[in-house]
């Protein structure tokens, strides 16, 4: 269970973007978080993935409170989350090939031996052709790059997936492919999902339940 307990967060202590918001995602559950742009849902997603330190409040992962943020979070807690960001261009290091991009978390956690097998398996899961794997981010389209970013998020088999507007930049067929890749992974692993977006139709079809930002902020 992933619990966000009365979080207040933002980039200026006097004017937080997220005020006293609580949200719970049960194990294996998928929750869609809807809201207009600029309301703070991405900030909430970053806090949930331990990438942004909240001013107040707590993130509790399977009964254990988060023990730090960003680098200070224990590696086991950090890697429990797979994060996919809105803009694939910005979330891929331009110097790495797609293979290196996907393999990076494995290498960073000292599991380089698993790289070839996992890459082959994940390329199939997210629908990346062999010929694309050797290319660098500027040589592939946004959709292809986002597939690689999803593969990177899945490579450590996280227990939680945080998709922050994962499909906002993409066409309908890529959106469908990515969503089905996420769902395949969740069916296999029983991972929970927090999908943030503003596409009501998509999130309502995709997720077990959707929450509107206004309801969260009011409670």
């Amino acid at each position, binding site marked *: 269970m992933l619990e966000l307990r009365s979080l207040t967060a933002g980039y200026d202590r006097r004017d937080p973007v997220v005020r006293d918001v609580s949200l719970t995602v049960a194990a294996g559950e998928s929750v869609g978080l809807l809201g207009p742009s600029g309301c703070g849902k991405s900030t909430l997603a970053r806090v949930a993935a331990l990438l942004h330190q909240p001013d107040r409040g707590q993130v509790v992962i399977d009964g254990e409170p988060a023990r730090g943020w960003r680098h200070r979070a224990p*590696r086991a807690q950090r890697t429990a989350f797979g994060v996919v960001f809105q803009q694939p261009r910005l979330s891929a290091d331009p110097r790495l090939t797609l293979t290196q991009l996907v393999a990076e978390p494995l290498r960073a956690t000292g599991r380089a031996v698993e790289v070839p097998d996992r890459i082959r398996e994940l390329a199939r899961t997210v629908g990346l052709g062999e010929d694309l794997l050797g290319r660098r981010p500027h040589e592939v389209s946004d959709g292809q790059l986002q597939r690689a970013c999803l593969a990177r998020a899945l490579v450590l088999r996280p227990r939680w997936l945080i998709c922050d507007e994962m499909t906002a930049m993409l066409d309908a067929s890529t959106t469908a492919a990515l969503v089905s890749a996420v769902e395949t992974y969740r069916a296999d692993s029983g991972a929970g999902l927090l999908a943030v977006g503003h596409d009501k139709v998509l999130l309502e079809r995709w997720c077990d339940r959707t929450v509107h930002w206004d309801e969260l902020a009011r409670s």
Partner: protein
Amino acid sequence: MADTRSPQAEASQTDPATQVTWRSATGRAAAGTRRSSRSTRAWRVWSSAAIVAAVVLAVLIVPPLVDLDEQAVHLADKLLPPSLSHPFGTDDVGRDLLLRCVYGLRVSLLVGVVAAVVATVIGTAVGALAAASGGWVDRVVMRLVDVFSSVPHLLLGIFIVAMFRPGVWPVVISVALTHWLSTARIVRAEVLSLRSRPYIDAAISGGASRWRVTLRHLLPGVLPQAGLAAVLMVPHAIWHESALSFLGLGLPTHQASLGTLVQGARSSLLAGDWWPTLFPGLFIIVPTLAIAGLAGAWRDRINPRRRSELML
């Protein structure tokens, strides 16, 4: 550029409708000067490249190839004006100036390149450390950088040189220790801007340690900037070496370096002998401007919005 302009110019004379200007304001302002400035720039790059190539060949090939002693004194030949046997003339103890200039340039280039590399390594390490750590480490380190840069370079350099016996390495240390500050600032700013990119978030989420993020993602991102800073530093370091030697603090006077050559020739200048100062002076100016010209062209390539200027 000329080809695209002339049909339009003709059309605008014949057809009133095309007299409406469609070029952007910046395009209009630049249209008159662009052609000449582009060819000037190409000329500058190629002449710089030719000079740098010639200089590097000269300092690499001449000393091992010609077995001449640049320190050999021939008092009978002192202060000969430029001639066929001594193209740059001779100095006040009869040493051949061309040979001494080449040897001097060799020493100055060595000092310049080594000092620039050392300064860039120090600056990159400090800048990356400050930016990657953030918080109080960043504040303390950068205030120290401010304090160091508030002391004039030359003064600090003199202080450092004065602690050692005269020689090449004290000069290298002195130039390197006074020139890493600007690189540290550049690298810190670059790392700070890279650090907030989502791919760093993704790396953290993928379990990367602080070290791994810095070495794998941040430093490779600042390498082009740091490399450019290093090349721009070379002429600066050469001037600094010349200045220290000119003040009598750098290399011992018998050892040819561009600074000691100019310094030694000052007395003969008053007697009307111009060549012992002119040629070493040209050897300081021309190669360093050529290196700066090449570095400027490189900077224009990687950052076209900022036109090159010398980093003086």
